């Protein structure tokens, strides 16, 4: 019995698919990984833009980083902004989405108008709110003055009691529509037959929402929370426009701290260490969150 000799495939043939995608993967790795590797290297050097030295200084920058109270305060401020703004944006966005779920006259126009803040650049939004909170020309102080019955000078961007509310209001104004948009789309895709069945079975509003609507929109809601959570962790523009991190460093976020260190004080290597710390922290938080909501599988 003769057998047909099947020619053994060459290396190139056996791994043709890898050869096809290889260059693209290499390019992506170069683009994605190289800056991180470079950042890591720089973080072990002593580069400042006002000095010519680029000597390696071991882990000095990391030691300084852990002893830098201002850095940890900035992280704490960032966490506070995130912890307060995110739930409010989610709740308001969801409420608005539920409100606009049903057909109503002029719905499209209202939705478009509600989305306008998202279109505005954050720095412009910050400048706008700076004017809104202005003690002389801003409408907010005027309205409060009318309600109070006498002229008031509330220094929203200076007073320690008012700066956080001011920033959070501006942040919520700008980004609640983002939550609203995603949740409106998600709510629109909830299975109508399930809702009708629940209604026929006599389920109340909360039970229907809790058992049918919430599970249906959870994946989109999770993504929305993740996106906004990451955005809030990078909070910069609105705070910069309103307070520049002040009074003192009371509203300084980690992004502002990094900017000040890197681009105002030219602590290049120290800033690299801070950036890596933030990357590690964010990656850990992200992995935890993804694992918890089972999106990483």
């Amino acid at each position: 019995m003769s057998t047909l000799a099947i020619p053994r495939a060459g290396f190139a043939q056996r791994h043709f698919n890898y050869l096809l995608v290889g260059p693209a993967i290499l390019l992506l790795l170069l683009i994605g990984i190289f800056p991180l590797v470079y950042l890591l290297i720089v973080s072990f050097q002593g580069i400042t833009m006002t000095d010519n030295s680029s000597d390696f200084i071991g882990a000095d920058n990391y030691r300084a980083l852990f002893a830098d109270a201002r850095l940890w305060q900035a992280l704490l401020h960032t966490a506070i902004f995130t912890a307060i703004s995110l739930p409010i944006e989610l709740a308001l966005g969801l409420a608005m989405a539920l409100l606009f779920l049903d057909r109503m006259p002029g719905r499209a126009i209202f939705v478009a108008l509600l989305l306008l803040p998202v279109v505005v650049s954050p720095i412009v939004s910050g400048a706008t709110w700076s004017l809104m909170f202005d003690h002389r020309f801003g409408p907010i102080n005027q309205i409060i003055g009318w309600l109070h019955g006498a002229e008031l000078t509330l220094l929203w961007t200076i007073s320690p009691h008012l700066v956080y509310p001011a920033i959070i209001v501006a942040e919520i104004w700008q980004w609640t529509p983002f939550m609203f948009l995603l949740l409106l789309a998600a709510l629109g895709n909830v299975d109508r037959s399930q809702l009708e069945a629940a209604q026929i079975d006599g389920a109340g509003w909360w039970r229907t929402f809790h058992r049918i609507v919430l599970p249906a929109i959870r994946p989109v809601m999770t993504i929305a929370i993740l996106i906004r959570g990451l955005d809030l962790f990078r909070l910069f523009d609105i705070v910069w426009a309103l307070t520049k991190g002040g009074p003192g460093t009371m509203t300084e976020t980690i992004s502002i701290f990094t900017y000040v260190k890197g681009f105002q004080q030219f602590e290049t290597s120290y800033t690299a260490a801070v950036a890596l710390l933030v990357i590690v922290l964010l990656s850990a938080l992200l992995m935890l969150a993804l694992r918890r909501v089972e999106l990483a599988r």
Partner: protein
Amino acid sequence: MDQLPAGACRLRRFAAWIAPLAAVSALALPGIASAQSGAKTAVEAAKKICAGKTITIVWEAGLQSLDPLNFSGPMWEKETGCKIKVVEVPTAEMFTKIMQEYRSGTGAYDALNVIPAWMPDLVQAGALEQLDTLVDKYGYRGELQKIAPIFRDNWMKVNNKIYGFPDDGDVFIMYYRKDVFARADLKKDFQAKYGYELAAPKTWKQFEEIGSFLTEKLKRDGMYGASFFREPPYTLFMFEERFRNEGGRFFDAATMKATINNPTGVRVFTEMRDENKFMPPGVEKFGFVENLATFVKGESAMTISWPPYGRFAAGYLANEKALDWVPKSTIADKVGYALPPGGHPELAAGFSLSVASTSKQKEAAYLFIQWLNSEEISALRVRLPYTLRDPFRDSHYTDPVYLKLWPDAKDYLAALKAASLSGLLDLSLIQTDKYEEAMRQGISRLWAGEDPKSILDDVAKQWDEVTAKVGVEKQKAVYTEWAAKSGGYPK
């Protein structure tokens, strides 16, 4: 030039008007218009090495840059064939941009506007070109000597080498309402209450008494006794001035430990906070423009600021399109000029012209800044109503054309000259901005209501940390040199 906006055309017409006027005045000043003048020398040399080329210069964004854009740039091009490209940068970003460009080494900038307090940092980094050789080659030392001594001796050199030409006589002076201070009823009441004559205050105690008195008397008419710009970057300068006028020293000269948290510093901080009570509500948020608007609209009786306030308040060429944003003055001819309390005003910020060490056409850039800075051309530039450039040469203070620009111009120039004679330099060390940033943050905490002593203790601690990082001995050498300068501390 059909595409030029109407405003630009008007500015050009102004330039065309002022140039011959200046030429006539220059001829009247012996020696200035001679063939050996710095301007003439620069033009002749630039025709040979720069014609057809473009010099890029970094200039402060906004009104300042209208000088090279609308006036000196076109004039230089007409005389030499050398074009000028202006890179406008906001003040807060100028140091960053200059350093970034230097580090990248592209040679994108040829000439620079530099705040003199930055010079030690920029020189140490290697970003500025040493100019001594070119100064000698083009015979410019004579004209440099005619710059007002306080600027010439302090804003030009690092380690005794020339790195910049002082080009903007920034100094704080006090502006007050002559008509208010002359009111018989107020004078009588004030004399009765405080036992001395109502006049521009010479001490901060007098300032507090006069300011609170005038607010008490005039608030119902919409006027406060005083208003200041209180945003931290401006207040930083005012603190530096006042602290030293009251006898404060920034550091212990032997140990380089910060001493701003001493009783003098705490008292100055406390008084500054308390004075806000007789100023307009929300003064803590006043910047340059808000304070200017308050003063020129007649809503405050006293203020302290840079020289342009005097020109704006006098309504000098207020119809210029570029000055549309300035509130129309309601107090022209009613403004008096004086030294701020203490008598030693801050030479706050200022500008020097430098050449970038990475420039590929350093000599051409040098010639342009020599021409700008020369007796002849600088006299024209400091008269421009819209560019915020202030008199800085001895001849500017006695310029016959300037003296007649508005009725009180002679008093204005006399005040500026007096201020230049007794002015105090901004603190200038290695990594000055880190010291300044700590103090700016301290000031914002002061306005937020925190305790002055604890704020200054924190600031002093941060200053000590910066000093330790730079190196105590290294910083001590720089500080000792700075403190020994004529404008370091009141002599």
